[in-house]
């Protein structure tokens, strides 16, 4: 009678090496130092999280018309509620704020239309870059089609912040590309003009540029000619951002192998043809993270216009903090501002990651 070897069924792995227990052991308690760090982190969380939740939600007051309404001891979000319109639109007349909203909706619709396959992308881009700004300008400033004129000094709040950021980004991008090409050019004069411009701007803080824009530009212009303050600040922001953009783009240009330039030459393309059709598309794709980073930096830097006396989003919050009806609501104002800025900047950085993945054409080493 043959003895047949029958393997007994495999035992399950020990509980200590799979599942939640193993995960905790490996990630939280693998060594004495780790155990200490884990407890230390838990202690920090214990110190921070419960009081913040209690302050921001449990004991918070959501409605009221002055600080006196906030008796629960927590956050006084009623302050943000009362000032919400000012934070968003600045001193823009309340009856006219629909114009800003309309412009925003228009932009969202146009950008969203990119997802529709049947729409011509080229026409859409032209509409956004050329037509939209003109429409938006007349919507904001008024003076046509019976729209009431709204002085730029009344523009403020998040509206002004976004306006400064978007115009700064859109205007500085082509300027930055041209400066980068100039810096890489073989023409000595063109090259040195670009180098001097880029290095000078990058060596000084944005505040000095803004001061220069608001104090010195009038001195350099002929008597009688003067731009309004918003335009001067915009010029300052654009020049500043362009210098940084130029360096980012230069990095991309340097990363393109020489063979690509030579191939473009061999095809008989002119300088501009080879740049626009061959080099720049590759270079810009390479530096998307850098470009988005400078966009984010610029967006955060728009807060500095407060120092030269413009009331952007942060400026309006700062102004509201001085309201005698709402003394002691500083933290609420800043928390609200931080939340909005954070959401926008974090959103931008995540969006750039998704573009990167989308444009990935497989040149990566595996």
């Amino acid at each position, binding site marked *: 009678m043959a003895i047949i070897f029958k393997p007994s069924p495999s035992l399950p792995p020990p509980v200590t090496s799979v599942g939640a227990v193993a995960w905790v052991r490996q990630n939280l308690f693998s060594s004495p130092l780790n155990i200490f760090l884990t407890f230390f*982190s838990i202690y920090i969380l214990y110190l921070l999280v419960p009081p913040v939740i209690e302050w921001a939600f449990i004991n918070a007051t959501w409605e009221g018309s002055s600080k006196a309404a906030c008796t629960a001891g927590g956050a006084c979000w009623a302050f943000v509620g009362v000032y919400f319109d000012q934070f968003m639109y600045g001193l823009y007349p309340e009856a006219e704020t629909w114009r800003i909203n309309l412009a925003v909706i228009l932009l969202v619709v146009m950008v969203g239309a990119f997802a529709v396959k049947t729409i011509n992308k080229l026409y859409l881009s032209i509409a956004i870059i050329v037509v939209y700004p003109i429409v938006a300008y007349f919507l904001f400033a008024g003076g046509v089609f019976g729209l009431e004129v709204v002085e730029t000094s009344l523009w403020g709040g998040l509206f002004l912040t976004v306006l400064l950021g978007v115009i700064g980004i859109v205007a500085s991008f082509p300027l930055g590309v041209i400066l980068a090409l100039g810096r890489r050019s073989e*023409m000595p004069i*063109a090259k040195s003009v670009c180098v001097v411009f880029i290095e000078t701007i990058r060596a*000084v803080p944005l505040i000095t540029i803004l001061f220069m824009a608001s104090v*010195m530009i009038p001195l350099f212009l002929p008597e009688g000619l003067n731009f309004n303050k918003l335009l001067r600040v915009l010029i300052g922001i654009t020049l500043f951002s362009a210098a940084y953009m130029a360096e980012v783009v230069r990095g991309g240009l340097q990363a393109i192998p020489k063979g690509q330039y030579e191939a473009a030459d061999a095809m008989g393309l002119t300088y501009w043809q080879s740049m626009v059709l061959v080099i720049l598309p590759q270079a810009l794709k390479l530096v998307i993270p850098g470009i988005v980073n400078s966009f984010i930096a610029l967006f955060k830097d728009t*807060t500095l216009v407060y120092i030269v006396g413009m009331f952007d989003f942060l400026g309006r919050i700062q102004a509201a*903090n001085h309201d005698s009806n709402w003394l002691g609501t500083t933290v609420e104002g*800043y928390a609200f501002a931080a939340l909005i*800025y*954070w959401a926008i900047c974090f959103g931008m950085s995540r969006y750039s990651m998704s573009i990167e993945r989308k444009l990935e054409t497989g040149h990566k080493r595996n």
Partner: protein
Amino acid sequence: MSENTTPSNNSFLNDAGNRALIFQILLLAMVVFAGYYLFSNLQANLDNRGISTGFSFFNEPAGFPILIHLIEYTEANTYGRAFVVALINTFVISLLGIVLATIIGVIMGLARLSKNWLVARLATVYIETLRNIPLLLQMFFWYFAVLAALPAPRESYEFADFLLNKRGIYSPNPITQDGFGLVIFGFILSIVASIALIIWAKKRQTKTGLWFPAYWSSLGVIVGITFIFLAMAGFPIEFDLPQKSRFNVTGGMVLPPEFVAVLVALSTYTGAFIAEIVRAGILSVNWGQTEAARSLGLRDNMTQRLIVLPQALRVIIPPLTSQYLNLAKNSSLGAAIAYPELVAVVMGTTLNQTGQAIETIGLCMLVYGSLSLSISVFMNWYNSKMSLIER
């Protein structure tokens, strides 16, 4: 047979060299013309407004107080002296900020790479939060929300001999007595001794392979020798302790809230950026290097210090340089919360009082320009020292 000639003007313009020449001449003419145009407008405007140019206002009394001054300064001093005071304030905050931001950045960068899940998550939250909120908002938060909410001097928080209240952080002020020269001498002696120790340890290691903990023991040498000389001189230091009085604090040394707010905001904000640079640098070192070091029998901390860190530094230093530059330039935001640095004093108060826009703005730009230049020259020197020497 017809001659096949191209029109001469066409061939001239088609030549790349000629076109470059024409383009550059046009560009130069434009730059020169723009410069001339702006300059002549400037002259006319200055004449019209009766503003004289030049730095003679530097010798006039400034007439405004500066809250924080490390050298003697009163309202009777000149604009020139006010400028120097502001310059020192900018330097001090930049230097301290760089040191603190580097420490925070290295800790947070390592923490984000930690094997401990909780620590890594906390570091990520720190980095992603601070990086995405404008620096000016953070400065306002520290100044107007945190420091302004501290108690009045009478109810100060106390830690040992330190006091914390809405007027700032008060610490004991060391006052040197006779015989302190001996201590300084001892300190210098200890540094010389420890340098000798490090050189000896290195020589011995190259010769015999024996390892000696030179850095830790030289720390001991410095502390030890300095202490012996302190004792020999009979401890010639007295501390002026801060005392709470009814409305104020007397004595001691004070770090004003403006200074603390700018320093904390600058270093935590820049620290978050440095953390990412440190993390990227360490991740860039091939894992094979760590494995090779382990197979050679190096302990973990030796692997980090001798194999990973030197290679990571090559990736870290260039972007770290730009963060240092950013920090120095961002110190100008202190102007918004009345920290008397360069922009606040020179482009703010001095410009307002004298109307000398060209001189003050130009001077500020020059200072920041040379500050940026010297930081980048130093860091480039360090970079070339650390970079890979390929043979």
